């Protein structure tokens, strides 16, 4: 396979010999400057730097500008752009069919918070192994700027309409629902988003990342709490996030005492250098308190907010055979004649 071919000399490649370009997708058709594009770029970098075979990855999405973006990264991976708000179920079916797949789902705040809130809720409960990204711009981009359920109280549409309904905090909701990896970041924070993405990929259960991603066309003006400038000013990182894949042996120079080390599912390590005092990402109550406290101040706490390790994911819970169900040979999925005879006998 091409992934194992020796790279031409002089080209920069990752640990499986692939160049960055192998992780790119089609040319984006989103607006120039759209936060979603920046997220796609980070996804490309994360998978490249982690040396993941693109063929192992499946990209899933619902409907929206955000949900279009899987066409713009990982062109060597299969993709499934489904229907509005229903990507979680499609992802569930795909992963159950083939447990060896590495799933990344991209949704929008409307796709997740409105039409898809039901499927989102149950995805968080199930702990399906998937990286689930909400590209959160507080509005419906694709249908031209209506409010979404994450629009902040008091935020204003270009037309002057004010949102007077409280927003859904998808991170707090995910934590409440039993999600096992919950993070928030900002499309403009390259370093933090990249680290979070890598940690999310290593998690092995549902990794939910809410990425604030300004819509430059409909929601990037004064008065919008999800505009580029607002988020930049009101982003309160929990600390520096650093991620070390299990195959790297880089020394990390975080000082003990101020650094929290979280070992991921596959043995890789997530380091959180603290700014906030006493913040423990493995403590549910603390995470929820932090989210409430920061949102009351109009601030977004960013970073890895919550991690629960060692909870079995859905594939483990269902105790599936090791091989993908999709490709089991007939003799393993059709019981022998004796079994049918036995059933028939019981019905006589």
């Amino acid at each position, binding site marked *: 396979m091409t992934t194992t071919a020796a790279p031409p000399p002089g080209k920069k490649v990752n640990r499986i010999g692939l160049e960055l370009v192998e992780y790119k997708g089609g040319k984006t058709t989103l607006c120039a400057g759209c936060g979603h594009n920046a997220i796609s770029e980070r996804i490309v970098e994360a998978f490249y730097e982690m040396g993941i075979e693109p063929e192992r990855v499946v990209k899933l999405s619902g409907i929206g500008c955000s949900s279009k973006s899987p066409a713009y990264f990982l062109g060597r991976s299969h993709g499934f752009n489904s229907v509005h708000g229903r990507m979680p179920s499609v992802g569930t*079916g795909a992963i159950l069919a*083939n447990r060896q797949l590495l799933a990344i789902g991209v949704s929008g705040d409307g796709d997740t918070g409105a039409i898809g809130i039901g499927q989102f809720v149950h995805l968080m409960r199930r702990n399906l192994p998937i990286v689930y990204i909400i590209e959160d711009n507080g509005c419906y981009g694709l249908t031209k700027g209506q409010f979404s359920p994450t629009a902040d109280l008091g935020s204003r549409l270009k037309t002057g309409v004010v949102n007077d309904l409280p927003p859904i905090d998808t991170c707090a909701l995910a934590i409440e629902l039993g999600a096992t990896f919950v993070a928030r970041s900002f499309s403009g924070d390259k370093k933090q988003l990249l680290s979070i993405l890598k940690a999310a990929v290593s998690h092995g259960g549902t990794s939910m990342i809410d990425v604030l991603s300004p819509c430059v066309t409909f929601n990037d003006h004064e008065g919008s709490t999800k505009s580029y400038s607002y988020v930049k000013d009101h982003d309160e990182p929990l600390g520096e996030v650093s991620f070390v894949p299990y195959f790297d042996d880089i020394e990390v120079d975080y000082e003990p005492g101020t650094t929290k080390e979280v070992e991921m599912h596959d043995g890789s390590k997530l380091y959180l250098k603290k700014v906030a005092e006493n913040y423990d990402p493995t403590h549910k109550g603390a995470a929820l308190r932090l989210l409430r406290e920061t949102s009351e101040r109009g601030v977004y706490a960013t970073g890895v907010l919550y991690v629960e390790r060692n909870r079995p994911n859905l594939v483990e819970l269902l105790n599936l055979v090791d091989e993908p169900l999709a490709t089991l040979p007939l003799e393993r999925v059709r019981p022998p004649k004796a079994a049918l005879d036995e059933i028939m006998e019981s*019905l006589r």
Partner: protein
Amino acid sequence: MAPSDVAVHESASEQTTRRITNDFSIQVATVNGSGSQTANLVLLRSIFQMGVPVSGKNLFPSNIAGLPTWFTIRANKDGYIGRKKEIDFLVAMNPETAREDVMTLESGAAVLYDEPLRLDALRDDLVFYAAPFDKLVVPVCPNAKLRKLVRNMIYDGMLAKLLDIDLAEMEKALRKQFGKKAKAAELNRGALQAGWDYAEANFTKRDPLRVERMDKTGGMILIEGNAAAAIGCMMAGVTVVGWYPITPSSSLAESLIAYMREHRVDKETGKATFAILQAEDELAALGIVLGAGWAGARAMTATAGPGISLMAEFAGLGYYTELPAVVFDIQRVGPSTGLPTRTAQGDVLSTAVLSHGDTKQVLLIPSSVGEIYQMAMDAFDLAETLQTPVFVMSDLDLGMNTWMSDPFPYPEGPIHRGKRLDRAKLAELGSFGRYRDVDGDGVPYRTIPLDGLPPYFNRGSGHNPDGKYSERPDDYVNNLDRLARKFETAKTHVPKPEVDDDPEAAIGFIAYGTSHWAALESRDQLRKEAGVRTAYLRVRAYPFTDEVKAFVERYHRVYVIEQNRDAQLRALMRIDLAPELMRNVRSVLHYDGLPIDARSITDSVLAQEAGHDGMTTE
């Protein structure tokens, strides 16, 4: 009247000279949640074991306990297993409905009733047998708490005596019903005996009904359609199931879970070769199925009308992006909640075009438990061969009622997984385009994740033959035309109708699904009672194959028999057949929630033939 007295009526006593053997229906009226199901199945099974063709239909309320329920057993020496309209023997155990149940009987019918109900005062043209069930149960079952459950077995014992059912066969049926629960079996055996003893000591046989041994059920099985479908799915090698509970489909998924746990879990490792997930709703259920199908698994769901409505958007995605999926629709009555525990064929039209835009879905329509077993397997083959959702249109009557059948044959031969690209084919084609019509049959090649072949991006938005995003008018038209071509190809794969021609007949019947059984019987009634000959075509799939058109052309008048108000299958025929042809096509419609019966068809057809405009049977 002394409690052991039997009501004797002059007019009824005249009938004792007549004998009606192996041709009657028994209806047991009870309250649901009272444990009558076991007694009813024991009764059904004992007649079956005596070699007499039987069928059992449970008419139950949408409620857990306390509302009336009726179980009807039909024994018929000629093998008619559709519903019989008239009740010949009523077992009246429900005070709520007893009066009305008795009042609706035809003259001459027999009634076994719980003595305090005093039903014998209601009519003088019936045969009454009264028994003090509450008294009889006390010595049989010292534990007062269990009496309610054991009480019903007493009427089985009485019926055994009255109808000449071999008590040993009843005991055998009882042992089968209780399986390993020996204590419960013993308690019920006592009740059976008590009923028999009471009947022997107190009843004088005054009705003409009798069961006599035959040899028409040897080697056969008794099963519900939902269990039969589940066995078919397991044999088809299903691996991923998403479902959401809804009557009357739940027992399909639940039997499947039970069978799969038994036969598809590795005995050593405890690991499963399947994933069955109860989804949050039917949208998610079909989403799971499509996601799994896209990734290469054989996946299915089971639902009923309300679930079908919710699945509409995903059904269109499946059609348009060409993904395999198997959906069982166990149809029930109604728009909205309707009558959730009654039967209908009311989803045929909406499912054939399920979703928005120009969508056409493939339907398989089974009539029997044996056929739904086979069609479950066919559905998976078809879904992968055609790369499209396939809907198996069952109904409550087939799904939840008890039917006899020959044992199901073990599937020999391979399964068909459709056009999967492989290296050789890729080399031959040079390159891969997901929606290219390489073979001219409208069915493209596909790849699945991790198969080492070129990936594609599955999208519900407009796409060109290479699967790339496209809003070009010509791409859209070409794609839709290819999908239409594929639907033509489907005609060569779906099961053909079953046709019984009669060159001397002017009339043709078209029926499908469970209407088949009443249609068959009505044909015989028409021939024997009115000298009217009929030809017959049983539709087994949509798209229709050419046989349907040819059949309509061959006969002067064609009656399409269906269990819905709007003549839904006939409406589908209108799409395919010329208006001149359709002018000769009439309808027999039945939509009261009860399974269609032969008498209603016969009456409707005779009325229409006589020039009346009685288009419906009710």
